[in-house]
C-alpha cells in the first residue's frame, strides 16, 4: 500500500513545479522577452575538478544542464537557442580528450532524436553550424541525419555550433557570396561593391535566425572566443560567475531580468542603426 501511494508523488511534484514555473514565466513576460539566447557552455572541466570527478563526467553533467536550460527557455517562449558546443580551436586539445568529446557528441545527438527527448517534446528543429567537414565521419553523418529528421519541425530552433568559429563562418559566407557572384556574371565584369553586407548575411550559418538578444558565457570569462562576433552587434553580453553545469533556472531568470533592464537602450540603438 505504501509503495503504491509513493509512486504518483514525483509526478504530482513535477506538475506542481511545472505550474509554479508557468506562473513565474507569466510574470517575466510582463516585460520584453528575448527571442534568441546564445550560450557559451564554459567550465565543464573546472566543474569536474571542483567536484573531484572524472573530467569526462563534467561534460556529461554539462549536457544534463543544457537539456534543462533548453526546457526552461522553450517554456518561456524563447524561439531560438544557440549553443557553442565545440570550437575549431578545441581541436588543439589532447587527442584523447577530443576523441571522448566526439564520442559524447555522437551519443548525445542520437539521444536527442529518441522518442522521449526534448526534440520531440517541443517539436524542435535542429541546426548544426560550423565546418562540419572537419568532424569525423560518424559525427558528421549523425548531425546531418538529425538536421534532415527535424527539418520540417515547426517548433523552436536549437542551433548547435560544432567545429565552429565566427571568423570561419564569415569566411565561408564570403566564399559562397563570391562563388554566387562568379556564377551570375561573365568574364570581364567588375565586381566593385557588388558583394554587400546583406549578401554575406544571407550566406552565414545563422541566416534563418534572428540575432541573439543575450549571449551568456558561464565561468565568469569575459571574452567571446570567436563566437557569433558578426551577429552579436546589439546582444547583451553576460558573464555569470559559475560553471556551466551549475547554471540553473534562477540564473536564467536573473539573466532575463538583466536583459529586460537594458532592452530599451539596446532596442533604441538597433533602430538607429536600421534607420541610417
Amino acid at each position, binding site marked *: 500500500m505504501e509503495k503504491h501511494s509513493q509512486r504518483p508523488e514525483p509526478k504530482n511534484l513535477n506538475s506542481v513545479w511545472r505550474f509554479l514555473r508557468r506562473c513565474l514565466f*507569466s*510574470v*517575466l513576460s*510582463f*516585460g520584453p522577452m528575448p527571442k534568441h539566447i546564445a550560450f557559451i557552455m564554459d567550465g565543464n572541466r573546472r566543474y569536474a575538478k571542483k567536484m573531484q570527478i572524472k573530467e569526462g563526467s563534467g561534460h556529461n553533467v554539462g549536457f544534463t544542464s543544457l537539456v534543462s536550460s533548453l526546457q526552461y527557455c522553450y517554456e518561456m517562449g524563447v524561439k531560438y537557442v544557440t549553443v557553442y558546443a565545440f*570550437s*575549431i*580551436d*578545441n*581541436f*588543439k*586539445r589532447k587527442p584523447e580528450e577530443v576523441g571522448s568529446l566526439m564520442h559524447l557528441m555522437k551519443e548525445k545527438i542520437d539521444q536527442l532524436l529518441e522518442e522521449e527527448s526534448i526534440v520531440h517534446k517541443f517539436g524542435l528543429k535542429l541546426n548544426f553550424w560550423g565546418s562540419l567537414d572537419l568532424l569525423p565521419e560518424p559525427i558528421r553523418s549523425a548531425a546531418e541525419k538529425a538536421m534532415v529528421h527535424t527539418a520540417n519541425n515547426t517548433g523552436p530552433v536549437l542551433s548547435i555550433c560544432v567545429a565552429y*568559429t*565566427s*571568423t*570561419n563562418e*564569415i*569566411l565561408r559566407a*564570403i*566564399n559562397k*557570396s*563570391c*562563388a554566387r*557572384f*562568379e556564377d551570375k556574371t561573365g568574364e*570581364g*565584369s*567588375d*565586381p*566593385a*561593391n*557588388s*558583394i554587400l*553586407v546583406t*549578401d*554575406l548575411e544571407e550566406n552565414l550559418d545563422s541566416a534563418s535566425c534572428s540575432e541573439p538578444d543575450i549571449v551568456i558565457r558561464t565561468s565568469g570569462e*569575459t*571574452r*567571446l*572566443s*570567436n563566437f557569433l*562576433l*558578426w551577429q552579436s*552587434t*546589439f*546582444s*547583451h*553580453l*553576460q558573464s555569470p560567475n559559475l560553471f556551466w553545469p551549475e547554471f540553473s533556472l534562477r540564473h536564467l531568470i*536573473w539573466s532575463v*531580468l*538583466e536583459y529586460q*533592464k*537594458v532592452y530599451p*537602450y*539596446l532596442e533604441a*540603438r538597433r533602430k*538607429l*542603426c536600421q534607420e*541610417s
Partner: protein
Amino acid sequence: MYLAHGITRALAPPVQKFQSSIILKWILGFCWYLLHLVVSLVDMVCFLNHLLLSSIISTGLLRKYQNLKLNNLNCLAIVVDSEEAEDITKTQKLLSWLSSIDVKCITLYDLQGVLKRTIGNDFKSMTNTSLRECKMSKMTVEILSLSDGKEGIAKAANFLISKYMKDDSLRCNGTKPTFSESQVSNALEAIGYKGPDPELLLVYGPARCHLGFPPWRLRYTEIIHMGSLRFMNYGSLARALYDFSKKNQNYGK
C-alpha cells in the same frame, strides 16, 4: 422578464472574465515590478561596492594598482555610447589617463561616428593625419565606427573577388573562389581596414554590448563593462587593467 434574465446571464460572464483578466494583469505587473526592484537593489549594492573600491584605488593607497604591468596589452579598445561621446572632454580625459599609464595603442569606437567627428577632427587639425589614425605623443589612437566593421569585410570580399576575376590562370582552371582567413586579413589590410586585435575592450555605456565593433578583430578580446562615461573614474580604469593583467587564456586548449 425571463428573456431579460437570460440576456443578463449571457452577457455577465464576458464582463467578469474581462474584470478578472485586468486583476490578473495587475497582479502579474506588480510581481514583475517587485522582481525588478530586487534586481535594481542588488545592482545598486554592487555599484556602490565597486565605487568604494574605485575611490580607494584613485587615492593611490593600494600599491598593486599603481605600477601596472601591462606586458600582455598591445592594444586597448574602448567602445563609447554615441550619445555620451558627444561630451568630448570625457574622452580626452580618458585618453590622458591611458597615456599616463603608458598604454601605447588605443582603438576608439562608437556606433554613429561621433568620435570621428569630434576627437578625429581635433587630431586632424593638430597633426595633419587621417581621420582614422593619429600619433599622440607616444600613443597611437585609431578611431572607428560601424562602417569599419561589417562593411569593411564586405569591401574585403569585393577586393578578393576582383583580384580573382582578373586572374585568368585561376579562372581558366575552373577553380571556384575559395579564400582563406589569412587572405581575408590581407585584403582588409590592403584596403585600409586592418588594425591590431585588441586584447582588452572597455565598454562605456549603459549596457555590456560591443555595438558592432569590427567582428574580425574581436576573437579573443576580453570585454569589460565600465558603466556610463559620465561616471568614469580613474580607479575603475586601473582596476580593469589590473584584473586584465592577471588573466590567462587557453585559446581553446
